[in-house]
C-alpha cells in the first residue's frame, strides 16, 4: 500500500492532460508496486478466505452438474412452455459480462483511451472467466449433454452435420471465436509482463514457469515493432467481433418468432446491455481489487469515473431500448406482441420487470452527478445493482416471453428449483476462483503498457510536466495513424 496521498486527478482542465498514474516517476517503482501482490511471500488473509469460499462454491457447481447429468434436465424448473429457464438466462448474463474486457482492450485502444491500460488486463481476464462460465451453461442445459459435440462440424460415420441455419450454431461459432480471440489477446498482452516476472523471479520454479509462459521474450525493439502491429490488428478484429458476438446471442431470440423475442432492436440492445453489465462488473471487481492489491495509484478515481460515464451512457441506451420495445409493440397493433409487453410489466412476472427497470435504467442516472461518480461507495453499490438488474433483464426476456405466448392453453408459470439456484451461485464460485488465482499469479495490470503511457516514457519530451508533452503526443498519434 502506498503511503503517499492520492492526488485528485478527476479535474477536467483542457489545458492539463489528466494524470493517470499517481505517485510514480520511475519505471522501476511502477513494476515493484504492481507486482507487490504477486511477489509478496504471503497474500493477505482476505485473499485466502475469498479463495476458500469461491472454491467451495465451485465444487458445489460440480456436484450440481453431476446430479443434473445423471438424473435429467427435469431437476431444473424448466417446463413445457418455458423450456429455457435459468441456464440460458445465466448464459446470456455471463456472455454479457464477458463483453467489457475485449471492448476495453479493443475499442478503447482504437480510440486511444490511454486510461484503458490500467484496467484492460484484468478486464480481459474477467472476460475470459466470464465466457468460461457462460460456455458451461449451454453445454449442460441440453437434454443429452454427452452429445454436445454434435454441435460441432466433425466428420462422423453418420454423415450427419450441424444445421447452420440455427442461431444456436451461430452461437457455438461466435462464442467459440470470441473466447479464442480474447484469450489470444490477453495472452499476447501478457507476454512482456510475464517476461518481467521471469526476470524478477525469486525461485527456480517461478523462473521456469514464467520463462516458458513468456516464450523467451527479451524486449527486442524489433519484436516490439511486430508485436504492436499484431496488437493493433487484434484490436481491429476484436472490435467488430465484440459487437457481433452479442448480436448473435441476441439472434437466439430475435430469429425465433415468439412475441417478445422476435424484434429487430435486439442486436444493438443486447450489445449495449452487454457493455453496460460488463463495465459494471469491471467496477465491482476493480474496487475491491485496488484496495486489496494496493493499486490505487493506477486504478485511480478518474478511471472509475470514466467507467461510470460509460455505464451511464449504455444504461440510458438500454432504457431507450426498453421504451422502444413497448412503443413498437403498441404501434404494431399486433395483439400477441402488445399483450406480451403489457403482461411483462403488469402480468405475473411484473415484479421481475420492475426490478430490471429500476436497476438498469434508474440507478445509472445517478452518475449524472460528479459527486456520485467519484464516491467509491456509491459506485460500488450502483455497479452491484446494475449486475442484478442485467440478470433480471435476461430473466424477463427469456421467461416472460415463453410463459405466455400465442395459445393461452399452453401458458404456464416457471419456478426455479434449488438446483437452478445453486448452479447459478456455483458459476460465481467458478468465476471468482479463477479471478483470485489470476490476481495472485499473473500480472494484474498491463505493466509495459502502463510504463508506455508515463510522461517519462516519451523519448522526445524531457521534463515531466504534462503541458509540454501535449502537442508531442498528438503528433505521434497522428504519425501512428498515418501507419508507419
Amino acid at each position: 500500500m502506498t503511503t503517499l496521498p492520492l492526488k485528485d486527478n478527476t479535474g477536467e482542465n483542457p489545458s492539463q492532460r489528466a494524470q493517470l498514474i499517481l505517485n510514480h516517476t520511475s519505471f522501476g517503482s511502477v513494476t515493484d508496486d504492481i507486482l507487490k501482490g504477486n511477489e509478496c511471500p504471503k497474500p493477505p488473509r482476505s485473499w485466502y478466505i475469498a479463495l476458500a469460499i469461491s472454491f467451495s462454491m465451485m465444487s458445489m457447481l460440480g456436484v450440481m452438474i453431476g446430479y443434473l447429468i445423471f438424473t435429467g434436465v427435469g431437476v431444473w424448473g424448466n417446463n413445457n412452455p418455458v423450456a429455457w429457464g435459468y441456464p440460458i438466462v445465466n448464459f446470456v448474463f455471463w456472455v454479457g459480462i464477458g463483453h467489457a474486457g475485449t471492448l476495453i482492450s479493443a475499442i478503447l485502444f482504437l480510440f486511444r483511451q490511454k486510461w484503458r491500460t490500467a484496467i484492460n488486463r484484468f478486464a480481459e481476464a474477467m472476460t475470459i472467466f466470464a465466457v468460461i462460465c457462460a460456455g458451461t451453461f449451454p453445454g449442460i442445459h441440453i437434454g443429452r449433454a454427452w452429445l454436445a459435440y454434435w454441435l460441432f462440424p466433425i466428420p462422423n460415420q453418420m454423415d450427419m452435420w450441424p444445421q447452420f441455419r440455427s442461431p444456436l450454431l451461430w452461437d457455438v461459432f461466435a462464442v467459440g471465436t470470441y473466447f479464442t480471440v480474447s484469450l489470444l489477446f490477453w495472452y499476447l498482452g501478457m507476454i512482456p509482463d510475464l517476461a518481467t516476472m521471469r526476470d524478477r523471479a525469486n525461485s527456480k520454479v517461478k523462473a521456469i514457469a514464467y520463462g516458458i509462459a513468456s516464450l523467451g521474450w527479451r524486449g527486442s525493439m524489433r519484436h516490439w515493432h511486430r508485436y504492436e502491429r499484431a496488437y493493433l490488428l487484434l484490436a481491429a478484429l476484436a472490435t467488430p467481433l465484440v459487437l457481433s458476438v452479442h448480436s448473435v446471442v441476441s439472434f437466439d431470440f430475435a430469429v425465433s418468432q415468439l412475441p417478445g423475442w422476435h424484434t429487430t432492436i435486439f442486436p444493438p440492445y443486447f450489445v449495449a446491455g452487454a457493455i453496460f453489465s460488463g463495465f459494471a462488473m469491471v467496477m465491482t471487481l476493480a474496487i475491491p481489487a485496488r484496495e486489496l492489491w494496493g493499486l490505487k495509484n493506477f486504478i485511480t478515481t478518474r478511471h472509475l469515473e470514466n467507467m461510470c460515464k460509460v455505464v451511464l451512457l449504455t444504461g440510458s441506451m438500454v432504457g431507450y431500448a426498453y421504451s422502444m420495445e413497448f412503443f413498437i409493440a403498441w404501434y404494431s397493433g399486433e395483439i400477441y406482441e402488445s399483450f406480451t409487453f403489457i403482461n411483462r410489466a403488469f402480468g405475473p412476472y411484473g415484479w421481475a420487470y420492475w426490478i430490471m427497470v429500476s436497476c438498469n435504467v434508474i440507478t445509472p442516472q445517478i452518475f449524472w452527478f460528479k459527486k456520485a461518480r467519484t464516491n467509491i461507495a456509491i459506485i460500488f453499490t450502483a455497479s452491484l445493482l446494475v449486475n442484478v438488474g442485467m440478470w433480471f433483464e435476461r430473466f424477463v426476456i427469456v421467461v416472460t416471453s415463453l410463459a405466455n405466448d400465442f395459445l393461452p392453453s399452453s401458458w404456464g408459470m416457471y419456478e426455479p428449483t434449488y438446483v437452478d439456484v445453486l448452479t447459478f451461485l456455483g458459476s460465481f464460485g467458478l468465476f471468482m476462483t479463477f479471478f483470485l488465482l489470476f490476481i495472485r499469479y499473473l500480472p494484474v495490470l498491463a505493466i509495459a503498457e502502463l510504463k508506455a503511457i508515463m510522461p517519462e516514457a516519451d523519448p522526445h519530451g524531457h521534463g515531466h510536466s504534462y503541458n509540454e508533452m501535449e502537442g508531442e503526443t498528438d503528433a505521434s498519434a497522428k504519425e501512428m495513424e498515418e501507419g508507419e
Partner: protein
Amino acid sequence: MSEVPSTTVAREDLFGLAAEFTTTPGIYHAAEKTRAAGYTWFDCNVPFPVHGLDRAMGVKMTILPVFVFFGGLTGLILACILQVFTNSLQIDLWALVPVVGYQFEVSGKPLIGPAAFVPVAFEMTVLFSALTAVFGTFFLNKLPMFYHPVLKCPQLARATDDRFYLVIEAKDPKFSLAEVEAFLHTLEPESVIALEK
C-alpha cells in the same frame, strides 16, 4: 564503471556489446546514432515499446498485415465451403476427403440461404485472422526462443523492468570490439556490457 569486455569474454564466444541506458531519450538518440554510424546488426532491448524507436532504428514495416489478410480470406472461404457443403449439397467426396455432404429441408427455406450463413462466415473470418496475427508474430519474432545471449546475461535482466539496452552484435560486418566499445561510450551509457553467446 564500464568493464573491459576483451578481458572477460573470449573473442569467438562474443555475441556482442550492450550499452545500458536509463531514460527513453537516451536509448532513442543512441539508436539514431548507431543507425547513422552504419551498424545494421544491432537491436534495442527495452521494457516497453519506446515510441518511435523502431523508426529511429530503421526497422522496416512488418509483413504481418498481409499474412492476416490471407488468413482471414482462408477463414471466409472455409466457412462458405463448410456450410454449403454440409447443408446444401448432396455430393460424395469420399474420393477426396472421407465425408459426405448432407442436404436437408428445414422450414421451407432454400437449400442455399446466404443470409443464414453470414454469421458463421464472419466469425470464422475473424477467428482465422486473429490466429494468423498472433502466431504470425510469434513466427516472425522466432518465438518461443528460450535461449538467447541477452537472456543469459544477468546484467540485462532489467531490460524487462526499467533499463534500456542497445546491443551491437558481433556478426555485424562493421564490428570490431575496440571501435564498437569506443562508439558505445560516445553514447553516454550507464555501462557497456559484453554479451557471451
